[in-house]
């Protein structure tokens, strides 16, 4: 299985959770300990090493917050 790395531009995130809902390995959640400049809890990755670089989160994100790389 391919390994991936996802990077979130957290300041652009609106916390809509669409990325969370489509991640097949369930490694994304909203960071409840942080509030960004827009006033939202941004999405972040909790277990980077489990990422399979499928790109689903980035494809689903309406605000182009996510960059996905295949290692």
């Amino acid at each position, binding site marked *: 299985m391919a390994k991936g790395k996802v990077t979130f531009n957290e300041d652009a995130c609106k916390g809509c959770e669409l990325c969370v*809902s489509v991640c097949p390995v369930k490694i994304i959640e909203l960071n409840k300990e942080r509030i960004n400049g827009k006033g939202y809890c941004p999405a972040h990755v909790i277990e980077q090493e489990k990422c399979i670089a499928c790109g689903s989160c980035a*494809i689903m994100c309406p605000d182009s917050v996510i*960059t996905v790389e*295949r*290692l």
Partner: protein
Amino acid sequence: MTIVYEKSKGLTDTPFHYCPGCTHGVIHKLVAESLVELGVLEDTIGVAPVGCSVLAYNYFNCDMQEAAHGRAPAVATGIKRVHPDKVVFAYQGDGDLASIGTAEVVHAAHRGEKITTIFVNNAIYGMTGGQMAPTTLVGQKTTTSPMGRDEALSGKPIRMAELLATIDGAKFVERVSVDTPANIRKAKKAIKKAFECQLKGEGFAIVEVLSTCPTNWGLTPVNALEWLRDNMIPYYPLGNFRDFEEGK
């Protein structure tokens, strides 16, 4: 290390004003990515509508023109006829295209104008606060149909893709949805082909994209996608209605 996905060069750095989870953002990305992949971004002129996407001219990294409400296909017609070598697209919502602008899009298709139209159908008027649109489903509650749309009073919702597919000048008509990553990939394929239709000089092309309005539907963004799947897709079937390559 290879990049699997990053923000399209076809979009500017301006953050979208859309509500959290609004799929306008997804559709903007697909249009921008298609223009970049076809290598025509520098030669493209877009026409922005009135509605939630009225500020689309701030987001696409190509020349843009604002049109009066519903008149984007007429404005796009003028631009394309003056600049036949440019790629011209209109980006419209359902209040814009299926209500006040029905005449413009029907006649643009009828004349076989070589433009590409992206039609975003979220079954409601978003910008003005969630009123009933021609595309609102029977029984769907809006601020102007608080008991749900009444078929006896307002009729059934209009199916624009099917309507436009009866017109000979329309050479590419497809309805897609952006509710899952798989459907988003299919939507991009359709949008790309709608631009190819124009590049080949075939005629009018339109892609109807089923979209959500979490704010005015009163749902979370994730639940709004489910509502789209459960309610909109059964009434607005996905698929191709006209394809210049298959001669249908």
